[in-house]
C-alpha cells in the first residue's frame, strides 16, 4: 500500500441528511425522526449537522414543498439534544431572510451556509454580515459551481470573504463536476483566499464521484466537507458520509467521527427511512450528465407522470435552458410546453 500524502490532514464533516435529505423525502421528515437522526450523528461524533427544510430558511412554500414542521420547530427540537454537534442552517437570499435567520439563531442554530448561485455572490452581503453579527460560524456557499469557471469562482469567493464569510464552499449542486474541475477550483481558491478562510466542498453523487471529488477537494486544500449518511440528499444524494469516513480513515485523514457508528446508522436508520433508494439511476445520472440542479429530480418525475414527457427529456431541456436552483416552477412550465409541442396537451391549456 502507498502511504497517503494526506495523512494527518484535519477535516470537518458537515452532515446534510436533515437538510439536503429533506429533498429526497419530499420534505416529509418528522420532528421525532430529525431528533433521532441528529442524536445518532451527535453520538457518532459528527461535528456539524444541517437542519432545515431542503431549500433552507423560508423554504416552506408551494414552490419548494411544505415540510411537516416549521424550521424553528425542527431546529429547536434538535439543538437542545446536542452534546457536541453544532446545528447549522441554509439561507438562500431571495428566499430566506435575515428575520428568519434571527429566529433560527434563537432556536439554537450556530452556523449558516449563506448560499447564492455561483455567479451571484453579491446578493449575499447583508445576510453574511448579519450572520457574523449574530456570532454564527458563517459560510459563503457557491451553488451550481460548474456554471462558473475557476477564475470566476475565485472572484465570487473573494467577494463572500470580503462580506465576512469565514468559509467559502464550492458547491456541486448538479453533481456535474469532474475530479479535475474540483481540484482546479479548490486549488485556485486556496491560493487566492486568506489563510484563515476555510474552503469547503459539497458534492452530489450523480456521476458516482461524490467520495472521489471530496477527497480531491481535501487534497487541494479543503478542510470542510458536506456529506450525508447513506447519501440521503437530492438527486443521487450527497457524498455518502460513512463511505467518505471509511476512506478518510484508510488515508489517515483526521475527522474524529466514529465510522462504524455511521455505517450502522446508514444501514439501520437512514436506508429504512428512504421512500426510494437514493442512488445513481437513469434520472439522477441525467442530472450529473446534463448539469441540472439535483433537487429537480423528484418534481421532474412528478411532471413526467402528469404530462407524459419522460423525466430525462424534461431534465435535459432544463439543463439546456440553464435553469438554476430556485426555478422549480420552470419544471412544470417546461413539461407543459413540451407536452403541447408533442401534441399531448391541448393548445388552449
Amino acid at each position: 500500500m502507498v502511504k497517503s500524502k494526506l495523512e494527518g490532514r484535519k477535516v470537518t464533516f458537515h452532515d446534510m441528511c436533515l437538510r439536503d435529505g429533506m429533498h429526497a423525502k419530499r420534505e416529509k421528515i418528522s420532528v421525532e425522526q430529525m431528533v433521532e437522526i441528529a442524536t445518532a450523528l451527535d453520538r457518532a461524533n459528527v461535528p456539524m449537522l444541517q437542519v432545515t427544510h431542503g431549500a433552507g430558511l423560508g423554504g416552506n412554500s408551494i414552490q419548494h414543498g411544505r415540510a411537516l414542521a416549521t424550521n424553528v420547530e425542527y431546529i429547536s427540537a434538535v439543538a437542545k439534544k446536542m452534546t457536541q454537534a453544532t446545528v447549522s442552517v441554509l439561507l438562500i437570499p431571495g428566499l430566506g431572510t435575515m428575520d428568519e435567520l434571527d429566529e433560527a439563531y434563537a432556536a439554537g442554530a450556530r452556523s449558516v451556509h449563506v448560499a447564492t448561485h455561483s455567479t451571484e455572490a453579491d446578493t449575499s452581503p447583508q445576510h453574511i454580515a448579519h450572520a457574523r453579527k449574530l456570532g454564527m460560524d458563517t459560510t459563503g456557499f457557491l451553488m451550481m459551481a460548474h456554471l462558473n469557471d475557476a477564475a470566476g469562482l475565485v472572484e465570487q469567493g473573494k467577494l463572500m470573504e470580503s462580506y465576512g464569510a469565514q468559509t467559502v464552499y464550492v458547491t456541486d449542486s448538479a453533481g456535474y463536476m469532474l475530479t479535475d474541475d474540483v481540484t482546479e477550483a479548490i486549488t485556485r481558491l486556496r491560493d487566492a483566499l486568506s489563510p484563515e478562510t476555510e474552503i469547503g466542498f459539497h458534492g452530489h453523487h450523480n456521476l458516482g464521484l461524490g467520495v472521489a471529488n471530496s477527497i480531491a477537494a481535501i487534497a487541494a486544500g479543503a478542510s470542510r466537507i458536506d456529506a450525508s449518511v447513506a447519501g440521503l440528499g437530492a438527486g443521487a444524494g450527497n457524498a455518502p458520509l460513512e463511505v467518505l469516513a471509511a476512506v478518510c480513515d484508510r488515508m489517515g485523514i483526521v475527522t474524529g467521527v466514529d465510522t462504524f457508528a455511521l455505517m450502522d446508522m446508514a444501514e439501520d436508520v437512514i436506508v429504512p427511512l428512504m421512500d426510494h433508494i437514493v442512488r445513481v439511476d437513469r434520472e439522477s445520472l441525467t442530472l450529473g450528465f446534463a448539469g441540472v440542479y439535483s433537487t429537480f429530480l423528484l418534481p421532474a418525475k412528478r411532471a413526467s407522470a402528469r404530462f407524459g414527457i419522460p423525466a430525462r427529456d424534461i431534465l435535459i431541456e432544463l439543463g439546456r435552458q440553464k435553469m438554476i436552483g430556485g426555478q422549480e416552477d420552470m419544471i412544470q412550465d417546461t413539461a407543459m410546453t413540451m407536452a403541447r409541442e408533442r401534441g399531448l396537451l391541448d393548445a388552449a391549456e
Partner: protein
Amino acid sequence: MKKIKCALIGSGNIGTDLIYKIRRSEVLEPVWMVGIDAESEGLKRARDMGLKTTADGVNGLLPHVATDDIQIAFDATSAYVHAENSRKLNALGVMMIDLTPAAIGPLCVPPVNLREHADKLEMNVNMISCAGQATIPIVSAVSSVQPVAYAEIIASLASKSVGQGTRANLDEFTYTTSNALVKVGGARTGKALAVINPAEPPMIMRNTIYCETDDSPDQAAITASVRTMITEVQKYVPGYRLVNGPVFEDNLVSVFMEVAGLGDYLPTYAGNLDIMTAAATRTAEMFASEILAGKLTLKPVEAA
C-alpha cells in the same frame, strides 16, 4: 400640448430606462436627472439625451424645483434614502412616484388600483417591485373571482438586468412584494421568491403565480378573469405574455407568465425593468392628466 415636468432621481438601470418611457409620454416631460457621481454612465447618458443633471443628490435638485416647474419626481434610488428624498420634495409640492421598496406611500399596481390613488390626491405612491408589478394583477384577477387564502409568486430575473440596489437589498424586495400580494393582490397571506439567473443569452423575465383558493376554483371564471387582466397589463407592457395556464390542481391555481421589455435601455429580456418603469409612467400619467385638466392641484406637504 402642455406637459408636466418631471425629475428622475437615481441614474441606474431604472432611472435611465424611465427617460425613454417618459419621453414618449403625451403628458410628461423628463427635465432633471439626479445622481451622486458626475462621471456615472447614467448621468452622462441623461446629459446626452438633453436632460439637466446634478451629481449632488436630491439637494442639487431642490433649488431648481420652482424655477423649472417640477411637479412629479420618480425615485429609483434605494429604500434607505427614499424617505428623505420624499420629505424634501413633498415639502416643495412635488409628487413622488417611489420605485424603491421603501413603500412609505400607498402601493400602486395600475390595472388594480390606480384610479383610487388619483381620487385620493396621494403625494407619494409606491410601485412595490418589478415582481409585484408582474404578478399582483394575476393574483387580483383570481381573488376577484373567489377568496384566495395564499398567493405565492416566483420571479426569475436575468442577472444582467438586476442592478446593485436590488442585489444588496433582496430582503426588502421580499418583504415589500409579499406584503403587496395581500394588500393589493387581495390574498389573505402571501410570499414572494426571487431568483437571479446568469444564463447567456439572458433569459426573459419569468413569473409564476400560485394561488390557493378556499373553495374549489371556478375554472372558467378564473381563466376569463386572468385573460382579461393580461389584456389590461398589455396596454402598457405589450410583452406581458401568458406561457402556460391557468392550470388547476385541487385548490391550486398556477399561472406561468413571461415579460419581454421594449428594449429601450436594456435589451428585451429585461422585462422586469420595463414593467416597473412602464407602471410608474402610467401612474404618473394619470396624475399628470388630472393636473392638466385642472382637477388636481399639488400642494406642499408640511413636515410632520
